[in-house]
């Protein structure tokens, strides 16, 4: 009997503490900006600097782009979020289409972020840039044999190509810009060329780079910062990037970025945050920690990344990634690109 009473009491205690836990409502103190973000690395330093500078606290809720957008939509006008961050221009485009952003007119942002890396309608802005290009094994491949994304469909790469799945967002965005550039029939031809080379599908850019280094394949497509991180650990890592399409359209770039939400409680603070993140100071921090490219052309690129030399970017507006993403997904399915 005694143990039963004890169990009961224990149960009540647990329920009580849970209730307490559920009911904990943070008391509003200092000014704060609430950030929903699907980008969750390499920004803490810049946030700290922002808080130091402005006294505005940043509260973040990390998540995956799709579900986070659903939460934002479900919360509607009572959402606590002031800013929504996500990786991939396609995601930004989709969020804008869903109406969760309010346009921002800011000279600072327009000045700091190149036009092709932000929404033409000022709803979102790219804050870091990533390039997705060709990677090759330095011991087995002569870089002179490599030129364009399209050329990876040449028969000489049969059985030597590693790709991520077509379901991977950065590949979808790459395909989407290809559609924008070349039109759907040509883009499909290119993808079919890759598929004809029977690429090994590997999940994870880092894994692809390791596979190239180990000799499982000789060339692949990845974002550059993954290589930079591997090289930072092992300078002799036998993989190097080749800037794709330099003679033609330029290397495909994508962004991570964000915008101010339509129902922001602290719109002014939110704009301040975006502006700060586009400044030289913050951009430098991004570049140093995540080894991405800063969007602000004045910021300095990380030494390892710099060693690969300058390159010509594809300057089509990254919003194309969203516009043609669904088409890209279907195209990949049709072409048999897994």
């Amino acid at each position, binding site marked *: 009997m005694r143990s039963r009473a004890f169990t009961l009491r224990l149960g009540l205690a*647990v*329920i009580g*503490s*849970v209730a307490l*836990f*559920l009911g*904990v*409502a*943070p008391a509003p103190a200092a000014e704060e900006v*609430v950030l929903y973000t699907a980008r*969750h*690395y390499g920004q803490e330093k810049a946030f700290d600097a922002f808080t130091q500078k402005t006294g505005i606290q940043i*509260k*973040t*809720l*990390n*998540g*995956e782009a*799709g*579900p986070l957008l*659903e*939460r934002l939509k*479900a*919360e*509607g006008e*009572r*959402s*606590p979020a002031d800013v929504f961050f996500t990786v991939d221009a*396609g995601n930004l485009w*989709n969020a804008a*289409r869903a109406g969760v952003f309010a346009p921002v007119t800011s000279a600072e942002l327009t000045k700091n972020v190149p036009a092709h890396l932000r929404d033409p309608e000022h709803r979102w802005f790219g804050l870091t840039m990533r390039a997705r290009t060709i990677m090759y094994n330095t011991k087995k491949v002569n870089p002179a044999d490599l030129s364009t994304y399209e050329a990876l469909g040449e028969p000489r790469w049969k059985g030597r190509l590693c790709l991520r*799945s*077509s*379901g991977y*967002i950065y590949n*979808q965005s790459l395909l989407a810009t290809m559609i924008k550039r070349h039109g759907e029939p040509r883009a499909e031809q290119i993808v079919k060329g890759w598929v004809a080379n029977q690429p090994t*599908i*590997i*999940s*994870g*850019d*880092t*894994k692809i780079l*390791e*596979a190239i*280094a*180990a*000799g*499982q394949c000789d060339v692949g497509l990845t974002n550059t910062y*993954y290589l930079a*991180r591997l090289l930072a650990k092992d300078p002799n890592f036998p993989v190097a990037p080749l800037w794709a399409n330099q003679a033609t359209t330029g290397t495909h770039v994508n962004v991570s970025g964000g915008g101010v939400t339509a129902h922001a409680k602290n719109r002014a603070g939110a704009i301040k945050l975006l502006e700060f993140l586009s400044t030289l100071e913050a951009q430098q921090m991004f570049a140093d920690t995540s080894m991405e490219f800063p969007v602000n052309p004045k910021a300095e690129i990380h030494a390892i990344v710099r060693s690969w030399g300058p390159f010509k970017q594809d300057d089509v507006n990254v919003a194309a990634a*969203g516009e043609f*993403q*669904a088409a*890209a*997904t*279907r195209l990949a*399915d*049709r072409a048999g690109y*897994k």
Partner: protein
Amino acid sequence: MLAASAIALAVAVPLLVVGAAWRHPAGDVWRHLWDTQLAGLLVNTLGLAAAVGVGTLVVGTGLAWLVVAYRFPGRRVFEWALVLPLAVPAYVIGFAFLGMFDFSGPVQSALRRALGDGLRVPDLRSGWGVALVMTLVFYPYVYLLARSAFREHGLATLETARSLGHSRRRAFFEIVLPMARPSLVAGVSLAVMEALADFGTVSTFGYRTLTEAIYRVWNGMFDRVAATQLASLLLLLALALLVLERALRGRRRFTQSQRRGGGVEGARLRGWRARVATGACLAVLGLAFVLPVGQLLLWAGELVGGARVPRNLPGLLGSTFVLAGAAALSICALGLILAYAVRLHPSPGARFVAQLSSMGYALPGAVIAVGVLAPIAWLDGVLHDVAKLVLGRPLDLLLTGSAGAVLFAYAVRFLAVGYQTIDAGLARIPPSFDEAARSLGVRLGSTLRRVHLPLMRGGLLTAAIMVWVETMKELPATLLLRPLGLKTLAIEVWELTSESRWAEAALPAIAIVLVGLFPLMLTTHLTAGPPHGPR
């Protein structure tokens, strides 16, 4: 009964939300899927479900019978240690596997060095690879349930059967196994539903299933409606499997009226048989636990120089503990109410409703999370309007982004774990016990407390740990529905691994394993010996 209906209904709401996606047409997506891949997806998905079902059944049942019915070196340790893989998140095992056995991993690299570059081994990134990993990850469900079923009646039944002239083998296959059927089915269906809902492992291994397609349609085509419709297909599939099992079961019943006391010792294995038994346990444990945890430790080791231990580890541990504990308690309570209600009113309809309410387990977490979001946000809207009317002022979001919403999502996702396990335990208590208690003037509630609960203590604890371990590892729903600032170990691990920062992710991942081990140890301790009464 009323409470049970309310629970079933509440938990079914997000599933209805999923079903309601059909209100919106998404015909062109379907046509596209039909043209390009739907058949392949279905084959892949069903194939995986079948392989994982058979795999977990064989491994889980085999190991459970081994440790219950035989004695061999190491048995005492294996008995509890074989549950350990449950505490390791599936994607960690998957990643460790790839890391170890991939082309660029140490095993193949060493083989190439020894045997030359021409060496080609079957690719782990295939249906078989996924099935293997999932079997290793999910077999503990079957193992746990089978073990408690075997412990309760296995050996006594075996003796009866052998006294009737059955060989040990025949007795096992013809008597012991069929008698444990409710438990085995519960375990296997949990494993299969997990396999159906899994996204992490299949995407890591590049194996395309319905769930993978759901994410692809959602993220790639920005079409959540079509994605949700696909998810309802998954739901249908899981439902069909359950209905099939019920149909095959027919009118057989599996309760046992006379219990034999415990204390029957397993047969001692000697010589090569003992070595095979020990070897089998070691092999499974090595692959499913030692290997991934070893990999984690290696990664954690890389950090020692940098000493970047997450500062917030105690906070993460705390919130993980509280959430998992609250989920374990509440979900077991819900499962118990549901299972008991079905026991009291055993109509096919009631059973179906109960089953239906536990179907959330077969859905990918993100789909559930969004399904939970809709009704919660709606409720918030109602509260808001009411508050405006009554208090004359608007209300902040009360439920959306609250721990309550997270717990609700856990209930939707994991009620299956609680319900199936508890139902299987309850099914082994003869109905005459209920009647005896009631004829002695004891009400239904007290009967539950005084008769059923003590008798199914083992099953209840099993349910509680399984829910505990599940919620501890749960990601999508926690991620989406949590309050601002609430973070669990799983979220920390995910944030780091999604950036391939495995070294930093190792410590919180190890913490997950440790937090999972805690209740596993506790149960083993609590259910090890009968403090009173036969077991």
